[in-house]
């Protein structure tokens, strides 16, 4: 029993360390991608002492700077809610990564370890539940700041998140019709059947459209452009994180990028075969490599969309979510179930 506990503790710590580093470098990736799309070079000067590292130490420099900024708690804000809200946003964002399978299994020192921290048979529901809890952090942040801009930003942001959560959940139901289980490990294993990569869910008939609905809904869910009106810099001041400074602001930013990484990870797990790829049967260590490549590709796609497409107005955004995406995902469920009933 203690062996199992030790294994869990080690895996959790490793995953958290990887995540925190990943978040930092995703912010750097965002700035570099933004720069190259805008025909310039991003941060490329921050090195380490006299080693030129082409800007790779930038996130570290930013982190250290943020720690030393003054931490202001506005006088009339509800103090404990104000302090607690960023934590409430960050903690569910961190918790989703224990059910995602990063690989099949590897053998280390004679022990076989599965490359997922825990295997829940309701893994997908657990992830959806945590994204729903993340909305609380935003609402509380907007409310407790006692600032009109924050309140409006928080309300609009949370209304947007819950509207697109419906389309997200219903598009996941379409995938479930094909998968027959909520267990993410099993869903990935199902996608490794012959013929090789054509077993990925994205190549099945209705699921290619479901992926588009899922991806758009997850962009809206994580408040990324083109759906970032409630927190864009030139609208509503800065929305729900107007009154936050220093580390609490960093927690919100971390939570936002973690949500993006979560959404991309779930998309690769459900649609792109997770850790599957060529030769992964013979060399299991390739599993996490393929997984990382796919997740990074989807994150790059999100950033590409962000720096290409203009922002939606808020009423256009809500109309799109309720009048187009929600009926589209319901229709997809009907089509998927009909296809399974009559053809497969």
């Amino acid at each position, binding site marked *: 029993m203690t062996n199992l506990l030790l294994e869990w503790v080690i895996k959790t710590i490793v995953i958290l360390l990887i995540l925190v580093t990943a978040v930092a470098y995703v912010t750097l990736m965002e700035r570099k991608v933004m720069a190259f799309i805008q025909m310039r070079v991003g941060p490329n000067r921050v090195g380490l002492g006299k080693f030129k590292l082409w800007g790779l130490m930038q996130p570290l420099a930013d982190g250290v700077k943020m720690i030393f900024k003054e931490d202001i708690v506005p006088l009339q804000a509800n103090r404990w809610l104000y302090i607690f809200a960023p934590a409430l946003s*960050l903690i569910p964002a*961190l918790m989703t990564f224990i059910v995602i399978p990063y690989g099949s299994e590897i053998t280390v020192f004679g022990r076989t370890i599965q490359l997922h921290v825990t295997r829940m048979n309701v893994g997908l529901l*657990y992830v959806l539940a945590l994204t729903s809890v993340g909305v609380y952090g935003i609402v509380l942040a907007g409310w407790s700041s006692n600032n*009109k801009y924050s309140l409006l930003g928080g309300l609009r942001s949370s209304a947007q998140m*819950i509207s697109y959560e*419906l389309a997200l959940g219903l598009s996941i*139901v379409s995938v479930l*019709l094909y998968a027959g289980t909520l267990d993410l490990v099993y869903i990935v294993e199902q996608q490794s059947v012959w013929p090789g990569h054509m077993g990925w869910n994205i190549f099945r008939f209705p699921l290619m459209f479901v992926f588009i609905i899922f991806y758009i809904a997850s962009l809206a869910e994580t408040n990324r452009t083109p759906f970032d009106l409630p927190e864009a810099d030139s609208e509503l001041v800065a929305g729900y994180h107007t009154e936050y400074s220093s580390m609490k602001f960093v927690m919100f930013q971390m939570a936002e990028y973690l949500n993006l990484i979560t959404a991309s990870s779930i998309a690769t797990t459900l649609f792109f075969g997770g850790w599957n790829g060529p030769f992964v049967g013979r060399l299991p260590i390739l599993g996490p490599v393929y997984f990382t490549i796919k997740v990074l590709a989807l994150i790059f796609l999100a950033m590409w969309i962000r720096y290409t497409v203009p922002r939606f107005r808020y009423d256009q955004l*809500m*109309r799109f979510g309720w009048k187009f995406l929600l009926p589209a995902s319901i229709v997809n469920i009907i089509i998927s179930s009909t296809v399974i009933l009559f053809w497969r």
Partner: protein
Amino acid sequence: MVNYVPVLLILIIAVGMAAVILVLSRFAAKNRPTREKLMPYECGVEPVGTARERQSVKFYLVAMAFLLFDIEAVFLVPWAVVFRNVVRSEVYGSLKYVFYGEMMVFMVVLFVGLAYVWRKGILEWNR
């Protein structure tokens, strides 16, 4: 059931991490409060009125509509998980059509609900 222990584990570690971050900024940062810094931000002018004014009821209506359709999703998930097994197995025979048809009826009823909400204009303006 023992599979849920890592959830507790990561909850504790994540709470610890958040606490460390908060405490870190408390001790590392300067703390020189001035009157202007502590006021709510309103683009540089003195704030007009409080932030606890009444908000639009549209947010409440959207939350209610979300609740209803989320309950629909809650009913759809278990159905979807067993759907393929039921359709593929020999045991159920032509009962699988009933299985499929019942859920289609349920979804049609909810679709009618969505159409009602649409016609009533809840999904309009502010949105």
